[in-house]
């Protein structure tokens, strides 16, 4: 008796999974094409901008971009954000971090800062600003718990949008190398027949992998 709903459930799930896609648009602006090249032994640090009061660039997105670069850039050290910010304390705290590359020029006049950055062998700073949000949702799922058992029934759907911009500073030349923006959107579904099954559009991870791939081609 349970076989029939299960088959329907699987068919609906498969259809939705097929439709559960996200699209990502990447845009690139290159300031200077002649010097944007990284060499073996150089390091790169990916940092999040968090000075906007209405949103905050997610730590896990910044970490995702850093991890993705680390796994694909051979011989290049990708410094984890928190470890870099702690080592440079207090110069890269949210309220004190350099907002443009000219401020970085001022910062390297401080001997301790310059020495630490040289220890890291930093070549590029990548500043990521943006966030992922749910823009629309509809449907409902209701769940019931009783002594005889528990179950849910219903259908919910929601749209997610991710907008991020990466600004790349060249520490060697102390100039702006370029900017990369990633816009991603997708619709997720959650049908529930006894058990809710989330069919998620990988909006944020799509933006992360696309942005990391673009940064990689930008600096190599």
């Amino acid at each position, binding site marked *: 008796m349970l076989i029939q709903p299960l088959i329907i459930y699987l068919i609906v799930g498969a259809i939705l999974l097929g439709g559960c896609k996200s699209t990502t648009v990447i845009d690139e602006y290159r300031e200077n094409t002649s010097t944007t090249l990284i060499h073996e032994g150089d390091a790169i640090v990916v940092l999040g901008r*968090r000075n906007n009061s*209405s949103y*905050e660039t*997610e*730590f896990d997105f910044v970490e995702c971009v850093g991890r993705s670069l680390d796994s694909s850039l051979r011989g290049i050290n990708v410094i984890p954000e928190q470890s870099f910010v*702690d*080592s*440079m*304390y*207090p*110069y890269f*705290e*949210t*309220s*004190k971090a350099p907002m443009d590359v000219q401020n970085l020029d001022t910062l390297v006049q*401080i*001997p*301790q*800062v310059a020495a*630490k950055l040289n220890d890291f062998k930093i070549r590029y700073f990548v500043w990521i600003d943006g966030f992922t949000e749910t823009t629309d949702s509809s449907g409902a799922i209701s769940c019931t718990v009783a*002594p005889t058992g528990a179950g849910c029934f219903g259908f919910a759907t929601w749209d997610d949008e991710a907008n991020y911009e990466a600004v790349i500073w060249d520490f060697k030349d102390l100039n702006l190398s370029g900017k990369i923006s990633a816009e991603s959107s997708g619709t997720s579904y959650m049908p529930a027949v006894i058990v809710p099954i989330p069919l998620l559009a990988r909006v944020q991870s799509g933006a992360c992998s696309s942005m990391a791939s673009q940064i990689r081609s930008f600096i190599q």
Partner: protein
Amino acid sequence: MSRKTMNLLLLGFLVFIAGCSNTLNLQVDSEVPTPLASRLPVSLGVYYNDNFLNYVFTEKSEAREDWTIDNRTSRMTLFNDILPSMFSSVNKVDSPNSQSTDIVLEPEVLDMQVALPDETHSDMFEAWIKYGIKIYSSNGNMITEWQITGYGKTHTAMFKNKENGLNTAISMALRDLGAKMVLDFSKIPEMKTWLSSNIDCTLYPNLC
């Protein structure tokens, strides 16, 4: 209804009640990294007054029935970690009129505020801490009273209970305060004037 079902329902009810509770008793646990700073050629005395040693955030309102946030240990750790990286020597003194050091700092907590996600309709816990730091010269005259505010927030409230969320936000606010102490102290106009007439400007031109 079986005894097992009754126990499960009772447990669920207790979890529900605990989740709705408006009481809070938080002991803040935080630390800041060692600052990357050059020391000022100034000997410092620190006078911790009763306000600084004993201030505990308390609130009894309809929305916050019985709230206590104690960050005494965290702020003492902050000052003990930050000040030695800012000055050539640091000593605790018993009065702001101590004449054994070049200057004396007397910090106090002026204000503290916290906000929960459902209060601000955001996905973040937030904290603000305002300190007043009186700075005295070795003759006991007050050079200035410096006010600094530290702000901290959690990046997401998801999967965080009230205690964890506020602990993170307050830790970030203390970290922000430490950053401002290190980087802004020598930029206070009255301190710039004092430094110009009390240190060798040929050796430290950026401080004069």
